């Protein structure tokens, strides 16, 4: 089936099958492999994208459900001026190791700071608890979130 959606501000069309996830469509059809597939069960958050501004696991959304909607992936955060402040903070704080969780965490953090510009540590912990990271132990990720928040 054909779907039409807006991805990172651009109108796109994709030919998907009924059971295809938005994540698979983004990665394999729309050539946007930035969103990662690590569990395909909505447990790890590596595939986090914004669907009409809401944070979702794209592995749990059917591609067909995104028909007519707006999707922002990690590739869409960077502007012509450079990195998004969350991306820049992740780089500077040392919040990236293997980086497989990073796209999801960057999108989740950007979404958090849109809603809560200056989150407390407890709020950061709760809001990012759906994003698994196996390398960092999260400490430098918290540093990055605080750094990005401080630069609003």
């Amino acid at each position: 089936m054909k779907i039409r959606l807006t991805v990172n501000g651009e109108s796109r069309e994709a030919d998907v099958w009924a059971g295809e996830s938005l994540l698979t469509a983004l990665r394999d059809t729309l050539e946007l492999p930035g969103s990662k597939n690590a569990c395909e069960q909505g447990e790890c958050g590596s595939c986090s994208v914004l669907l009409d501004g809401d944070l979702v696991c794209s592995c749990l959304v059917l591609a067909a459900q995104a028909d007519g909607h707006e999707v922002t992936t990690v590739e869409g955060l960077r502007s012509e001026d450079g990195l998004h402040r969350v991306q820049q903070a992740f780089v500077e704080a040392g919040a990236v190791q293997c980086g497989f969780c990073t796209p999801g965490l960057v999108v989740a953090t950007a979404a958090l700071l849109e809603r809560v510009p200056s989150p407390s540590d407890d709020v950061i912990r709760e809001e990012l608890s759906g994003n698994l990271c196996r390398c960092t132990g999260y400490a430098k990720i918290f540093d990055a979130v605080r750094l990005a928040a401080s630069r609003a």
Partner: protein
Amino acid sequence: MSTTRPQTELQLGRVGDPATRHDATPKVTGEFAYSSDLNAAGMLWGVTVRSPHAHAKIVELDISQAVRLPGVHAVLTHGDVPGQKTYGLEFADQPVLAAERVRYYGEPVALVAAEEPEQARRAAAAVRVEYELLEPVVDMERATEQPPLHPDRPTMAHGYREDDRPNVVRHLVIRHGDPDADGDVTVSGVYDVGIQDQAFLGPESGLAVPDGEGGVDIYVATQWLHVDRDQVAPCLGLPPEQVRIHLAGVGGAFGGREDLSMQIHGALLALHTKRPVKIVYNREESFFGHVHRHPARIWCEHRATRAGELVNVQMRILLDGGAYASSSTAVTSNAACFAIGPYKVANALIESTCVYTNNPPCGAMRGFGAVQTCFATEAQMDLLATELGIDPVELRLLNALEPGDALPTGQVVRGSLPTREVIRRAAALPLPDEEPLPRDPLRLPGGAGNTTTGEGVRRGVGFALGFKNICYSEGFDDFCTARVQLGADGSAVVHSAAAEVGQGVAGVILQVARTELGTDDVALAPHTTAAVGSAGSASASRMTWMAAGAVRDACRAALEERERSGGEVDVERVYRHPRTTPLDAETGQITGERAHVALAVAAMRVVVEVDVELGLTRVVWIGTAQDVGKALNPLAVEGQIEGGTAQGLGLALMEEIVTRDGEILNASFTDYLLPTTLDMPPVDIALVEVPEPDAPYGVKGVGEPPTVVSTAAILSAMRTATGRPLTRVPVRPDDICL
């Protein structure tokens, strides 16, 4: 696959600087290409058919239906492996594809390549395999009395202690001093460790591309490119130079990528179909796709004087190696050699045995045998402290192993080992204040639940030491190669096959090259077997040490060469650490100056809160001091310590592969739990820098000690909180409900 140029706007960094990662920008933008992100024109998708039984005979294998399905280009079985039929990291005991028998749940039996992933999966489901079930060997204590899973005994006659019992992978005995020596007090215990998974986030994946001349290029996430090549080529029936392994983006490793996953399978399909073939495991398959941390049972008896001096330590360690050898022989040795921790003991008897079973194959995982024994031996030290009425930190200081003292193997500590300093620094880290109740349920054990207002919460403080070797051991001829090209314009390109798995070795290589060459104009070429010799494995906390040595030497040689000849220079150098020798097969004593290259110690202090009504635990705070030699990049070192600590926390509280008759019951992130942001507390870190004399810049590997110590330290705090012995990890809610 282009040469990665460091970002000029970031802090580039020389040795000792807190440099930002050279690959951080492509990783935060989503542009970094992981092994699962690769594509090639005309690419097919490969899928692996796996055994649904832990132990069975293959009676019949019928691919006739599968090959006829739409889009299918190949269905391959054991008979299609053109070269050597088995492979393995140290012993070639594992079939590329199972022939007459399967020995573990999830063992590869056949391969399919098709145009679309869904077509490949359907064809895999259409491969008909008739099995005759065999009694699985699943109890490691009974394995040595059951029929052998490998009657040809692949790990025997390699210089290890001879052992006639069936299913023994390795049996090591370390006899030190007088094993009958008595103390004034004795404490004993039996400790159990469950199977932990590396759970790297990027599942096994790669792309195999035929070169049109009979050879193949494999782009894959791995830890050691050259040893992959040396296992793949014989199975394909090709000379090594026709198999080129290129490092694709690696989504974490932690030991789980030491063994092969899709490498041979992808290459077989690619050479057979003459098309590029991509294989990507999903999360469930990833649980079958790599080896795990050995589950263990450890019996301990510690004898000491009334004053607290250890007199005699006896430990019997049993490890379940699962179906194939992998690196189990080395894990067996590591578990034994560091079993008693960084303590001076005149007498010891340590027996370490690993057995084959039909459980999931086990091999390397961060800590490599030392995690299991640290948990046991540190529990014993706490017991002893209680028995003697001595402060647990004082007891550890009293027995601390320092340079000049001997290990139970007879090896005298010659390098840096600031055990007392590490203990004192960790013990001096200030504890957080107790938090009053009631409070936000987010800050109670269990997190967001609103079941309680904290009436059952008990606070406990714990302490532990972790101890492990750095680099490979027991006479292994370990080396690391680096190649440096200097351009006429002053620019430099470094070639290294050192696997960047997320730990940051690529950054270290650049820092070393910038330091040695005195320029920031340094690029790192792609990691590949095609352009440079072996770097050895990103394992054993060795990669930073070895790569730093090789790159330093190659840079210095390149500068000398340019001094001599002028113009462009291209030199390759091989670095070796001081040689080690094997342990005596009968006594477990050293046969030369040393069996291990260097040692590292970490101390950790932990505060927990246990809700003894709900059986839930909150780790409130962790403070740690670690012996790092010299921090080449303090930011990256902290990241290793924080991340390594989290993996130990996972083993303490939640991570376990659950099996029934060898079948994995929880192969998903829904059922295999990993620490989240809600589980990890802040970690206060003190770096103790006493340079290692044998290492470049005085460096020591830093990745493993935090994982070794944190499980033990968290359990220590939980025992204080609950008063329970807690002899098994991960701890279950039932264990801590009072």
